[in-house]
Every structure is written in structure tokens, then in C-alpha cells.
């Protein structure tokens, strides 16, 4: 899921980084619906224009930060001794 959108984002990334660094791109399919200051705005526009469909809302940054949830990913949330 979202492979098409991610591929399209990557194809636009250089231009987006030059024009709107730090903002949020909204892509559905191969259509860039806009660039927004906040991800909430992007989601609202996506929902209003295309309905409840998968969409890519991605911050325009050179490198994405990885999420870190060590207790969950190591299965230690409720580990017993």
C-alpha cells in the first residue's frame, strides 16, 4: 500500500525540497494535491477532495527520521522476570 504515492514523492523530492522545505506534501495516486504547513490541513483536504482513501502525507525533509519504540519492538512492554 502507498507504493505508487511514495514513488511519486521520490520523483518530486528534489523540486519539493527546493520550493517547500519542511512543509507537508499530500499525494494520492500520482497526483500531488498540494503542499501544506500542517499535516492536519493536508489530511482534511485529502478527505474532502478524494474521500476516505489511502493517501501519502509526507514532510518534505532530506532524510526521514526513524521511529523508535524499543519496549514495543523488543516485546518488553509487559515482560516478567
Amino acid at each position, binding site marked *: 500500500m502507498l507504493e505508487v504515492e511514495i514513488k511519486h514523492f521520490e520523483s518530486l523530492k528534489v523540486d519539493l525540497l527546493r520550493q517547500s522545505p519542511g512543509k507537508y506534501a499530500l499525494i494520492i495516486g500520482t497526483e500531488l494535491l498540494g503542499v501544506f504547513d500542517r499535516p*492536519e490541513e493536508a489530511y482534511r483536504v485529502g478527505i474532502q477532495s478524494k474521500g476516505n482513501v489511502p493517501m501519502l502525507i509526507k514532510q518534505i525533509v532530506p532524510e526521514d527520521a526513524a*521511529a523508535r*519504540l524499543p519496549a514495543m519492538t523488543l516485546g518488553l512492554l*509487559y515482560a516478567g522476570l
Partner: protein
Amino acid sequence: MPVYNFGHYLVPQSGSQPPAPFPQGLRTSGPVVPVLIEIPSALADRLQQSGQTIPSPASGLALVDTGASVSAVDAGCIQQLGVQPVGIVTVGTAAGPQQQMLYPGRFSFPGTNLPSIDFSSLLGADLAAQGVDGPRGGPLVALLGRDLLEHFVLVYNGLQGLFTLAY
């Protein structure tokens, strides 16, 4: 400022003595709050405009996880509500980096005075298998990570078996 206090106490058999702090309860259950997982407000507005039914929220417990850089929601719960993904994120695991879906969502905290919060993205994770142990046990449906905690004051009083969340 809304403040939520929760303490674990042992209630004595005779009514003459006050409840005693029970630190073991907090250690076992962790800092958990009751939570309702709802569809994001923008989607609720859209469904309402088109005369569609808004799905009932999923309920369970949310664990405050100061080790988590982002908040998470049980993927089964959010998918059951019909919420579609808005992204993918790389998660560092013991087995190497893995990609997981991001979903928008809304958390409300019944029985507390904490405000409801819309998230532009929550990590979809398999939390259902990790129920909350201890006296305050139940299904774990969310993790409250540092993206949320940056707006809160959290006090963890292990000696007294209580914690405080203030917004």
C-alpha cells in the same frame, strides 16, 4: 490546566483505616489511562456531511511510554474503524529496520478531564497481544509517546504508586 491523577491503593478490610499506597500496582500495570480510539475529526465531518454513520470508537487502555518517539495505536482497532493509512515509517527493531503504516486518529480519555487529541499520524502496531497486566489490567490499544508527551507534564511517583498527567 487539566490534571489527571491516578494512584494505586490497598483498601483495608476495616473501614476505620485510610487506603494505603500500593506501589506494586503501578509497577505491574504501568502508567495507563483509559482511552477511546476514534476516527479523526476530519473524517467524522466528512461522514456526517455525506449522511454516513460514524463508527463506534474502540476502547481499552493507553500506556504512557517515554521510550517511544511516536505514539502508536493498535492496527486492528484503527483498521476496524475504516481509517485509511497516510504514510509509512521505518521502525528500528531487534531484527533490523521494518516499515509500518501510519494512520490518523483521535484519542479521548473517558473518566478523566484530559482533552481529546487528534493525531495526524499514529504508528499502527500489533498491540492486542500485549494486554495490560496487574490490578488495572485490560486490552492495550495505544501507546502515548513523546510526540504527545511534549505537550504534557508527567510525574511518575513510584514510591507512592501514583502518576500525574497534566496538559
